[in-house]
């Protein structure tokens, strides 16, 4: 509302006002801004990877195990910016391409787990008869370690990225269900829900209009944590050889393949490892910042 009046009063000053407000926001929520900025850079680099790097699969045995050379970093012909691996492949190109897989897995797992968990959680919280059965199933699911489930799934089928995403999603769903259910259980006792029932709203409408919006804030925060943990699990599975097929460059695959050489060529592990750490850090910073921002009880300053 303040924006509107400001814009009407002095249209020319609007960009300045927006910049000023962003400055205030950044000062109050530094973790959100830092996390989001890091993540944005990563996403852009990952999206642009095919355009700005050499082909990641291209092997050149002559150039194998070259150390990183950061002089002329922006020279598109250079293949050893981050060094090369034991087959002479470009680590820079492979790290950026690895970001594509990691971010894809992180975001889709977060989206799938939240969507499925939200629906089940709303039903379980609102329809108490459904609740007892569903929560016991969720308890059962929670007891399956995701690494084991993924290995079992990959062993049963031929593997692949989609199956990997499913395997990581399944054990994350119960966490979301529990979160959503707990929110529903508190919201449904609030007087405005009784008021909605007393004007004749059907259950479906009450869930969508009155209960669902209350779950959004905690759900966004939970989604960021799921995203971070999915990225780590994917890297772990690839490292174990139960994840993405080894020919696809992912951070886990890269680290796994360089185990034999890392004493001689530590950059083989350093760059994918650092990228992994930075992405997970960025997502967690964003999640922490959002939690502080969206939950007034935890925020120290509003």
């Amino acid at each position, binding site marked *: 509302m303040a924006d509107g009046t400001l814009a009407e009063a002095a249209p020319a000053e609007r960009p300045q006002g927006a910049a000023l407000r962003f400055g205030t926001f950044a000062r109050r929520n530094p973790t959100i801004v830092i996390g989001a900025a890091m993540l944005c850079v990563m996403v852009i680099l990952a999206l642009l990877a095919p355009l700005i790097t050499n082909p990641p699969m291209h092997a050149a045995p002559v150039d194998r195990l070259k150390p990183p050379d950061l002089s002329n970093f922006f020279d598109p012909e250079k293949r050893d910016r981050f060094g090369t691996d034991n087959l002479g492949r470009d680590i820079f190109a492979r790290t950026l391409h690895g970001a594509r897989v990691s971010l894809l897995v992180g975001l889709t797992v977060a989206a799938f787990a939240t969507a499925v968990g939200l629906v089940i959680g709303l039903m379980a919280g609102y329809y108490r008869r459904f609740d007892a059965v569903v929560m016991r199933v969720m308890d059962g699911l929670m007891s399956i370690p995701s690494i084991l489930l993924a290995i079992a799934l990959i062993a049963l089928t031929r593997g692949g990225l989609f199956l990997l995403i499913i395997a990581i999603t399944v054990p994350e769903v119960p966490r979301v269900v529990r979160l959503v259910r707990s929110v529903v259980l508190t919201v449904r006792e609030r007087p405005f829900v*009784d008021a909605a*029932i007393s004007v004749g*709203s059907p259950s479906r409408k009450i869930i969508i209009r009155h209960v669902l919006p209350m779950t959004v804030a905690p759900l966004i925060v939970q989604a960021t944590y799921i995203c971070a943990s999915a990225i780590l699990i994917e890297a772990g599975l690839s490292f174990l050889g139960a994840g993405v097929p080894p020919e696809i460059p992912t951070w886990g695959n890269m680290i796994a393949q360089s185990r034999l050489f890392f004493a001689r060529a530590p950059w083989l592990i350093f760059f994918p490892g650092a990228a992994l750490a930075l992405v997970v850090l960025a997502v967690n910073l964003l999640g922490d910042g959002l939690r502080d921002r969206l939950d007034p009880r935890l925020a120290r300053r509003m």
Partner: protein
Amino acid sequence: MSGLETAPAATAAPILEVSDLRTHFFTRDGVTRAVDGVSFTVAPGETLGIVGESGCGKSVTALSVLRLLPPRLSRIVGGSVRFEGQELLALDEPAMRRIRGNRIAMIFQEPMTSLNPVLTIGDQIAEAVTIHQGKNRAEAMRHAAEMLRLVRIPDAAKRTGDYPHQFSGGMRQRVMIAMALSCSPRLLIADEPTTALDVTVQAQILKLMVELKQATDAAVMLITHDLGVIAETCQRVIVMYAGQVVEQAEVVELFDAPLHPYTRGLMASIPRIGGGRKRRLAEIPGIVPDLRKPIAGCPFAPRCPMARARCRTEPPPLIEHRLGHLAACWYAGEAA
């Protein structure tokens, strides 16, 4: 004294007829008989007050009429609730939903929490209209603005886009009234509508309710523990104690000549201006009986100043002592 002098009670066929209503709560410690054989009627256009202490079953009676009680904890175990000749206790849930908010509306006690903080005022008032009258969003929002104007919220059309936190307590209760009246219900149940408000705001809200009631000619069931509110607004009063009706009368008659010792006790415990500083406020000794245990005689007997042996063994029936004035007391009207 009474703000409403429309149709006298009991001439027309009642709009609401509650007979021998029994609502029990099933808890771990046993069965609580929250409402235990309550009967009353509400005539079209009438304002009926239900008064009593906390826990006497007045709210549960109201919620039972609309069948809004938590289904796993409570059950209406007996009696009948007939609204416009239709038995509400026999209706299925979808049929009941068509009555709620449409033919019978309810105003709750807490205006601060009965509105959803994340939806606009207009959206929330429009909810009932979209459900019951199938209006589209634009029509419903126009109607919402109209309702806000009706409850005297200034700049109504603009304020439909505001959120509850932008309204004060009294304004929110006006919004609740607007919500309740948006489908022109024939019966309005107001459960302690002014309890959470400042005294000056209480008076405004009551005045507004009386005016709107006259304008719409809806019947009102007003639940309160405040005899002052009853005196201002109602035509007929029911006094409840321990889940039972102990006295029922026209409002003037009740205040002039209360028959039941409990009603007298309630009236004696109202502070009076000019009563003198030294005068100690009268109270009713003792506490409300435990509704989980069977009550042998009159439920009020343990606290009653004039209880005799018969009161502790035989429950007194609710009988008419004067024209339209019923009381459940063996020694009704006797001086204490």
